[in-house]
């Protein structure tokens, strides 16, 4: 509860602080201090020092898992804002507005990690999504940014509609919004209600797939990711997506049993098609930004494995995966921001021009590809381990592995451009400080590549 309330308050404060405080630097600092306060307040609840508490009629349930995930989200946002302060300031004199939107998004994310009621799910998703529509269109004079925002808004609202329809169906069949294993209302026509319940769950499933950009509901992703300003794409593809996944898992860990065998079938279909579309299409991209958009679809396919069965393995896996994926993606986008264009050619010869930057980019790409010594390897390993522990067949793991090998093709294309092709990278000036910040993220990834358990040990203690 602390996180939800404090993030809302901070959002409001940020909104109004642009009246009094005009310098970008100060606004940036205030946002960082605000985030720090947010982290502290959330830690306070996690450790039971100080809890704002009132009766939510059981609509929210604060578990250790949810609160801990909150902390991780806030920390990653902290890194993100710390890194991208200058870039965010470029779009508007009033960067404070954007920071306010970030805080609202975090509020939505903290609802999504702790809802225990389908209405709260709906609320969380909306609070998360609406600021995103604005961020997508932040580059007001850019036609692509506007197009992307409109597209995202229309499709996003449509999918929210579907979500709402699904929730209605579930309510109709069970008479409850609560996230327990669904019990059908006793009546004469049980088969009919079973059907309604299944339909409702499938609709919710489809809407959630849309939010986490899983195939076949991924069509908005490349256009929106491509059109949105790179700095916001980076946020969209990481924390927002991860929050979506946590919600996704929370719903279906309790509800999936109602679907019976259909569940595994549908889920396998979605996972395989997501991996297929994401990986195969990414290979053929000419623009790094679009490649990363498809790669984020592919990574979503991997994260979907956590839905297979709710074990402690799956929880560890999704937490590790979300953190590692977010850090690596923020890193890659952080480098991309400094490029004048988004093509692969822009990276040509980066290793010569700026060896350190090329090195950190390589670490990010290795992590996304799942090469050992980077966090990405253990993220994938834990995920597959969870999958096998949940009783999935070996064939599914083999498919996942094959696509992981395909992903090497497009990630390494960038490595090849940086190291093996001679040329002059077309990039803006990169301040030393910025490179060191990226290096810090890379070092975090390397640490996670040797000791992955530092991330989820706190789930238990």
């Amino acid at each position: 509860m602390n996180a939800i309330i404090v993030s809302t308050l901070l959002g409001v404060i940020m909104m109004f602080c642009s009246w009094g405080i005009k310098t970008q630097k100060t606004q940036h600092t205030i946002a960082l201090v605000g985030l720090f306060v947010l982290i502290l307040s959330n830690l306070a609840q996690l450790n039971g020092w100080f809890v704002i508490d009132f009766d939510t009629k059981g609509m929210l349930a604060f578990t250790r898992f949810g609160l801990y995930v909150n902390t991780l989200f806030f920390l990653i946002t902290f890194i993100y804002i710390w890194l991208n302060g200058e870039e965010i300031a470029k779009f508007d004199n009033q960067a404070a507005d954007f920071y306010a939107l970030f805080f609202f998004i975090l509020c939505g994310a903290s609802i999504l990690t702790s809802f225990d009621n389908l209405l709260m799910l709906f609320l969380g998703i909306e609070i998360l999504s609406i600021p995103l529509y604005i961020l997508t269109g932040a580059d007001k004079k850019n036609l692509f940014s506007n197009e992307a925002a409109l597209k995202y808004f229309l499709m996003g609202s449509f999918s929210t509609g579907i979500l709402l329809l699904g929730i209605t169906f579930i309510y109709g069949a069970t008479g409850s919004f609560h996230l327990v294993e669904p019990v059908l209302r006793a009546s004469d026509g049980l088969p009919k209600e079973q059907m309604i319940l299944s339909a409702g769950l499938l609709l919710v499933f489809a809407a959630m797939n849309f939010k986490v950009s899983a195939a076949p509901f991924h069509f908005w992703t490349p256009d929106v990711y491509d059109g949105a300003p790179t700095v916001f794409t980076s946020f969209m593809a990481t924390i927002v997506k991860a929050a979506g996944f946590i919600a996704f898992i929370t719903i279906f860990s309790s509800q999936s049993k109602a679907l019976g065998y259909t569940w595994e079938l549908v889920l396998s279909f979605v996972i395989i098609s997501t991996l297929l579309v994401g990986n195969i299409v990414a290979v053929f991209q000419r623009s790094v930004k679009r490649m990363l958009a498809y790669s984020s679809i592919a990574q979503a396919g991997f994260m979907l494995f956590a839905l297979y069965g709710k074990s402690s393995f799956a929880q560890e896996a999704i937490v590790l995966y979300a953190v590692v994926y977010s850090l690596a993606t923020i890193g890659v986008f952080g480098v991309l921001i400094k490029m004048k264009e988004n093509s692969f050619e822009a990276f040509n010869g980066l290793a010569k021009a700026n060896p350190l930057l090329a090195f950190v980019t390589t670490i990010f790409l290795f992590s996304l590809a799942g090469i050992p010594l980077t966090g990405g390897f253990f993220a994938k390993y834990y995920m597959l381990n969870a999958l096998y522990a949940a009783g999935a067949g070996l064939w599914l793991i083999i498919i996942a592995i094959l696509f992981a090998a395909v992903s090497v093709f497009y990630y390494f294309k960038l490595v090849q451009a940086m190291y093996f092709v001679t040329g002059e990278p077309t990039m803006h000036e990169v301040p030393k400080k910025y490179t060191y910040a990226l290096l810090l993220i890379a070092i975090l990834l390397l640490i996670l590549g040797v000791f992955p358990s530092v991330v989820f040990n706190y789930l238990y203690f």
Partner: protein
Amino acid sequence: MLISFLLIPILTAIVLLFIKKDTLASQTAIAASLATLALAVFASFNQVDAFDIAWLPNLNSRFTLQVDGLAKILILLTAISLPAILIASAKNEYKQKNIFISLLLFTQAGLMGVFLAGDALLFYFFWELALIPVYFLCSIWGGEKRIAITFKFFIYTFLGSLFMLIGILFLNAHTAEHSFSIQAFIHANLTGGQKITAFALFFIAFAIKMPIFPLHTWQPDAYEQSPTPVTMVMSAVMVKMGLYGILRWLLPLFPVAFAAHTNVVVFLSVVGILYASFIAIRQDDIKRLIAYSSIAHIGLMNAAIFTNTGIAIQGALIQLFSHGINVLGLWIIADILEQQTGTRSMQQMGGLAKKQPTLAILLVGFALANIAMPLTNAFVGEFLMFNGLFILNPWIAAFAGISIVLAAIYTLNMVQKVAYGEISEKINNMPAPNKAAQAVLIILLIIVFVTGVYPQPLFTLTADTLEQLLAK
């Protein structure tokens, strides 16, 4: 103590990144690799305790390093190769040479890790880590078509190792305490069918690494396009990872599945041996010739191991070391020729014996070892291996035996073209002999003949491994 096999190369490699002066970088690396060699010699003839600390407690994976005869012999080979390569190529010019050498040392650390790891996850970790620096080495400093070819090599081996990862995950799920140690894997609770699956998953990784026909297509190109010092590492030591994997993991873990696949694998190996030998005869490029010859030799070792007879496995254990030394010598000569004449085509060579007699004599020495003449080290190993093949099936042994004749043809052909005949223009223009490289070659040649005449130390070294493998 075992941890220093990783620490020395890694720390030196990191230091090298900051030493911009070529000669100093090269000297530092040589000193470090000689230190590793001294340690390896010490470890080979003494009892060494395992190094074991907790690594990933919630996965139950431990950072375990341990040695037995098999590991010792490969550690020794790795430790000998690096200083030999560094000294022999000390005069070669590469852009950013300190990084080049640094990556070579990282590779060495990865290889050492592979041979020392007693924990499956750690093994996989190092297996990949040995690959990454080689990928950069070949792609940055390689020949014209380096990028595409190295990528093919990378994808091949990466895919293979991913299958091994599934195998590890699969076995881990079926051990009593979800452990990754070799012992736990040996006692994993699997049905017959599951064992075959796991066997296949591991085997793909090893088969690609060796490589076994028909998965060999990455190798000749990769050897040809890589800078020769890297080719030396790949061909002398890295391919042994595949054979090592079979001896360390496959054979002890799945003895039954192993025996069930004897015929298929031996057949494929023999096909590969003959195929590679015939192609080697047609080569004009000296690097490609050695590459194909190496495929044939590795194929023979693989066939010998899969016969599952004590005598053949003993032969293969020795040959792991001997082949490394021999092929290293050949590559160093090829590198000298390429550096000094500017060509790899044997057509354009000739008359080396008149211009640089020492080098020509060394070439003949290693050529004889390549054909496994008696008195050379390769004879001991190959004799035992053919013996084992003969026990399995005389026909198979007969077909594989053709490869000896073919090896004589292509190797002697090479000697003839390079060393004798009219002095060609390129050979005539060769600068003064590279004394350091020749000294390395002489030492290697001494090893060739000493272990050829008196191989007992190698038998003693590998005795414990052999005993364990046969106890299954």
